């Protein structure tokens, strides 16, 4: 515990076990982006995965939407300290997209429209932990929140869930993405409070 701030009482008195350290609950859906919101039509959207050997798989919007979908009910945690409980998403598990792919890579770079990138270990995206989502709360995903398609990696801080995602590249060594070069943590586990690059 830090120094006591005289006269400060605070409002959200009930410690909620769903809340990681240093976070507060919000009922709104705040927006964290570093630039303008791009307007991408679903029809022009494409997604690809490229392995460390240069092998590439591609999906058009129609091909992507023909894949089996899952509903995901999850809490999300933003590095700017808000958490939102029980959000509802619909999308395709990354396990489906990775199926049968030959790779020994340990690391992934997520690429988004506009050239933004964020890095994540491959293990964090496999095993029912990550999705490519296109619906939020029963509606097509808003551009502000990453539509038409964003990544959803809810067990990590939310910047790892790249908005307007266009592809993944797999790598055998860890490289830092745009967000990480600009001060955010390489891994980003909210329960360990890995917010900024100097957090252990």
């Amino acid at each position: 515990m830090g120094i006591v701030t005289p006269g400060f009482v605070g409002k959200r008195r009930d410690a909620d076990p769903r809340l990681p350290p240093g976070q507060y609950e919000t009922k709104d859906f705040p927006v964290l982006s570093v630039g303008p919101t791009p307007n991408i039509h679903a029809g022009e959207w494409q997604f690809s995965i490229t392995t460390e050997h240069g092998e590439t798989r591609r999906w058009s919007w129609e091909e992507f939407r023909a894949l089996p979908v899952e509903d995901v009910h999850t809490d999300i945690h933003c590095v700017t300290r808000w958490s939102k409980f029980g959000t509802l998403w619909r999308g395709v598990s990354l396990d489906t997209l990775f199926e049968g792919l030959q790779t020994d890579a340990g690391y992934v770079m997520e690429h988004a429209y506009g050239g933004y990138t964020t890095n994540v270990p491959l293990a964090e995206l496999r095993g029912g932990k990550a999705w490519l989502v296109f619906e939020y709360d029963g509606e097509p995903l808003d551009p502000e929140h990453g539509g038409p398609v964003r990544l959803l990696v809810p067990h990590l801080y939310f910047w790892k869930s790249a908005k307007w995602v266009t592809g993944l590249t797999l790598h055998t060594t860890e490289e830092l993405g745009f967000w990480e070069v600009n001060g955010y943590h390489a891994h980003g586990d909210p329960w360990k409070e890995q917010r900024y690059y100097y957090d252990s």
Partner: protein
Amino acid sequence: MAGVKWVVAEVVGIRDETATARTLLLRIPRWTGHLAGQHIDVRLTAADGYQAARSYSLSSAGDDEFAAISVERMPDGEVSPYLVDGVVVGTQLEVLGPLGGWFVWRPTQAEPIRMIGGGSGIAPLVSILRTHLHSGSDAPVQLLYSVRSPEFVYFKDELAELTAAARADVSIRYTRSAPEGWSGPVGRLSAADVQAWAARTPASSLPASSYICGPTRFVELMADALVAGGTDPLTVRTERFGGA
């Protein structure tokens, strides 16, 4: 910056900006300044150990001795009412930072600077103006500042001085009511207003950098307007403060 940790800062000065906003000057141990545009996290701890933390942009110049934050009181907010009404000179607060590596301006940047701020979103933009002044930069700089009415203008005298000294091209847009004798338009900025303002940027061999800051909805509208007017999205940096 490695090893940055929560440290105990002391409030060494307080200035009222408006009836609902104050600037706090903070003495932060081992502070070596900041980049214009960066923020700090501020953490408050109640007597029983309950904690709440929020982010605040630094409004000080990067090389000022004291860090400054400028906070608007949010009705029903948890942290901002305490910072605006509860803090006195001598109050200790925990802070972490400086933070952020993208919404920043460095004195080595020679290209024209365009800044659009809404409400308390003026805070990091004033940091850029002050840092620009201290560094003697001759990058052309223009600011478009949207506020409800004259009594909500932060840094009023300073903005007037910068204008008088021709250090910056400052335009204020009043969205609800303007000062007496005001001849300009009143009301929310339209996309056309923003584009006309952007067209004033002096010709330069380098593309302008744009900085937009304020409530989320405001930032979305302003950024969309710039991009629709032909500004390359990759030259537009945004800081969304939250809210609707």
